């Protein structure tokens, strides 16, 4: 597709359930980012990939959060044993990365997955 695609758009989970959120970045984009956005707040950085390498995961709030990008394209954010405080919109963004010239830092966002933990 032309843009970043995230699925599902909405996810309702019972507390304690595991969830997996998918991100399809723009084809050829080297960099991929996950953000968590609480209501009325800006996106908070979770983790960053350059191709398949996870270069920064300093924003992951706990060891219940895990992200992967095994083939350097599609990425999955997994949250184990979900808790109510995990309720938020999870945004994925991709950017051209090092090969992108002047546009390398511009991020292209998906519409997000809204996670509600009951």
């Amino acid at each position: 597709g032309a843009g970043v695609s995230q699925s599902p758009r909405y996810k309702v989970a019972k507390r304690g359930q595991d969830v997996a959120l998918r991100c399809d970045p723009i084809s050829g984009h080297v960099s991929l980012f996950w953000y968590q956005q609480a209501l009325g707040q800006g996106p908070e950085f979770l983790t960053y990939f350059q191709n398949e390498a996870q270069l920064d995961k300093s924003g992951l709030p706990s060891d219940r959060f895990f992200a992967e990008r095994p083939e350097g394209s599609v990425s999955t954010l997994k949250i184990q044993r979900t808790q109510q405080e995990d309720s938020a919109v999870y945004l994925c963004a991709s950017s051209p990365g090092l090969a992108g010239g002047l546009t390398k830092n511009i991020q292209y966002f998906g519409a997000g997955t809204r996670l509600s933990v009951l």
Partner: protein
Amino acid sequence: SQQGEEDPQALSIQEGENATMNCSYKTSINNLQWYRQNSGRGLVHLILIRSNEREKHSGRLRVTLDTSKKSSSLLITASRAADTASYFCAGGSYIPTFGRGTSLIVHP
């Protein structure tokens, strides 16, 4: 923690008026970006200004950057109802770090 802080948090104006939003950031940056987010959607990139630039224009948008004060401003001229959205600044090196945003409402 969030790199930028936008001011004001909320702004309500009439169509045709100009809207000015400010952003302050904490650490050194290579560039600063402004994004827009419509309700329930992802962020859309508006404009990027490099740390060695002071002002940049794109259509009805004008961005300024003052690295000595660690601040930036976004001016939207001749606003339209369709400009209603939240606006975020993002600064940083390879990972843009976002502020809390300014919620702009433009009344028709």
